[in-house]
């Protein structure tokens, strides 16, 4: 028991904070209920996918600054292809967007491996490239989303208190993450993030693993872009605030910048915490701008405490 607590201390702490926040929300807004839960979950979707995308490359010891731009490309592609599309075309679109996401991520990863330029710089350059691609596909917000597909993320699932969008999120993440975590490939991703040289000497193909990690990042980003289009009903070529938010959630979620540590659960809980804080502050009618300050302060204070704790741990 104590071993579980020690190993998952950070995640359990986040869970506790999330529960406290839900209680707090119920106290300040007694009629917070099913619709509130549903809209919270739906608003969190794109942020959660962006965070998952960022988390996987950070675990592999990298960073991807182009996450938001890739989401924009996926979003506008979906919106353009789905305009007036039938069932077959819609399904084709979903598959196509996911493949495009994998492709974009793989290009990012391949460029990092081939050029040997630091990942921050490559993905910074690719941020402009993907932004440009999104603008070429769609100059101004437009397109449409197939109505029946939009229903997937609206309303409850089976039981009234379980939002469909939340189930959607969990299923999408689990389908990719759980097999990965149990496979050799997942272990390799953790290994190259933890110590590249040691991983190399243990016979891991560093380049290939890195490209796959970035490709998975692209895949999650594409899911994020897709849900964004589904929830707004049109494509938006200008990237949203997902880059900063995803880095914040990843760090808050206990994934160490530099790689090798952390998982997907922590960051996803962190995303919900950050979104719920934002909603609570709106509920107690705090100026939305103050909300930005609070969010930034939470992020800074948490990483500072984390840093101090890490230093203490090293000294002992």
């Amino acid at each position, binding site marked *: 028991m104590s071993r579980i607590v020690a190993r998952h201390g950070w995640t359990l702490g986040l869970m506790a904070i999330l529960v406290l926040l839900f209680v707090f929300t119920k106290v300040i807004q007694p009629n917070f209920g099913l619709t509130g839960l549903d809209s919270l979950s739906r608003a969190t979707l794109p942020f959660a996918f962006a965070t998952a995308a960022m988390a996987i490359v950070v675990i592999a010891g990298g*960073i991807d600054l182009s996450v938001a731009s890739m989401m924009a490309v996926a979003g506008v592609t979906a919106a353009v292809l789905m305009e007036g599309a039938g069932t077959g075309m819609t399904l084709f679109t979903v598959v196509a967007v996911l493949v495009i996401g994998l492709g974009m991520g793989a290009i990012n990863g391949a*460029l990092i491996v081939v*050029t*040997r*330029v*630091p990942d*921050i*710089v*490559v993905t*910074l*350059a*690719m*941020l*402009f*490239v993907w*932004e*440009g*691609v*999104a*603008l*070429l*596909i769609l*100059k101004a917000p437009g397109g449409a989303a197939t109505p029946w597909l939009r229903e997937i993320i609206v309303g409850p699932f089976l039981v009234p208190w379980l939002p469909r969008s939340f189930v959607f999120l969990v299923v999408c993440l689990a389908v990719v993450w759980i097999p990965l975590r149990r496979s050799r490939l997942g272990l390799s991703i953790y290994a190259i993030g933890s110590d590249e040289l040691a991983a190399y000497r243990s016979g891991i193909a560093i380049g290939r693993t890195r490209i796959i990690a970035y490709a998975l990042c692209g895949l999650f980003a594409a899911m994020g872009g897709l849900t964004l289009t589904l929830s707004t009903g049109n494509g938006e070529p200008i990237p949203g605030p997902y880059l*900063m938010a995803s*880095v*914040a959630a990843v*760090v808050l979620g206990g994934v160490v*910048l*530099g790689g090798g540590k952390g998982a997907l659960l922590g960051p996803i809980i962190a995303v919900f915490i950050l979104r719920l804080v934002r909603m609570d502050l709106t509920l107690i009618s705090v*100026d939305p*701008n*103050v*909300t*930005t*300050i*609070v*969010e*930034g*302060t939470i*992020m*800074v204070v948490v*990483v*500072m*405490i*984390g*840093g*101090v704790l*890490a*230093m203490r741990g090293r000294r002992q």
Partner: protein
Amino acid sequence: MTDQPAPLKRVLRFMGDNPIIPLIILLILLIGVLEYMRPGIVNERWMGNTIKFAIPLAMLAACQTLTMLTGGIDLSAAVAATISAFVMATQVPIMGVPLAICIGLIPAILIGLVNGFGVAFCRVHPLIMTLGTGLIGTGCLQVYQRFVIATGSVVPDGLAWLGTGRTWGLPNSLLLFVPFAVVVIWAQRRTGFGRLLYALGSNQTASRISGVRSWQVLLALYALSGLIAGVTGLLYVGLIKAPSLSLVNPLLLPSVAAAVIGGTSIFGGRGGYAGTIVGALILTVLGTLLTLMQMPEGARRILFGLIILAVTTIYIRLTDQSR
């Protein structure tokens, strides 16, 4: 034949030893392409304009260069610059020009100090720390804006003169930038502070064992970075003449790109400000070039990104940075 290295190899080695030369060649090449596309465009007036717009970028890139030397980065620089500019412009009607400029610089230095505190004492990754303070700064600025919405904003004539005016064909902003650049280059090469930056970036453990108090250096560095960002903001608002809540933000990523193209390693310990200045000029000329091509906005951004990537790749190969 076996003793003498091939001429091409010798040229490459020479360029590797003097990394600023290929950058200058690239700059001249870009200007050549520009002149070829629009004969007669390269004149005194055009040069003045290019320099005028490259200077704020180069100054903001100074924040990136100096912090990158220690292996850091300052993503809050653009926000600090915007805050300085906005606070100054809104305080001018109340406080008068000199006092408003001082008040404007305070938040920028404050942001720098918070960054330095987090990086030096809590060992937070600079990327995260400066991202967070940038977020907080943006929020504070938006809240501040609601309190001063009635006062209006004034860009002082002096700053407008410095930002847009020209004397004998040369932009006045050179009056600020030339001494600034000289001081920065001198400081990084000749002073103890500059060498400590390289030392911390090359090997933090080794420099700690050699008795460097890294917290002092980092605190001073990030505070200085904040101050430079603040001054940049004041200059930029003199150039644009319309203070807004996202005034300098579009320059943030290009400022990182300018430092990287200029040969400063993002991992620290390598590079310098002279390269960054050329990098900022290259980006500005590139911007003009891409605007002149009759291309959709999207294609221009794609080209911009690809060129940054290509230049950095070639540069890293040339100077043989193994990391």
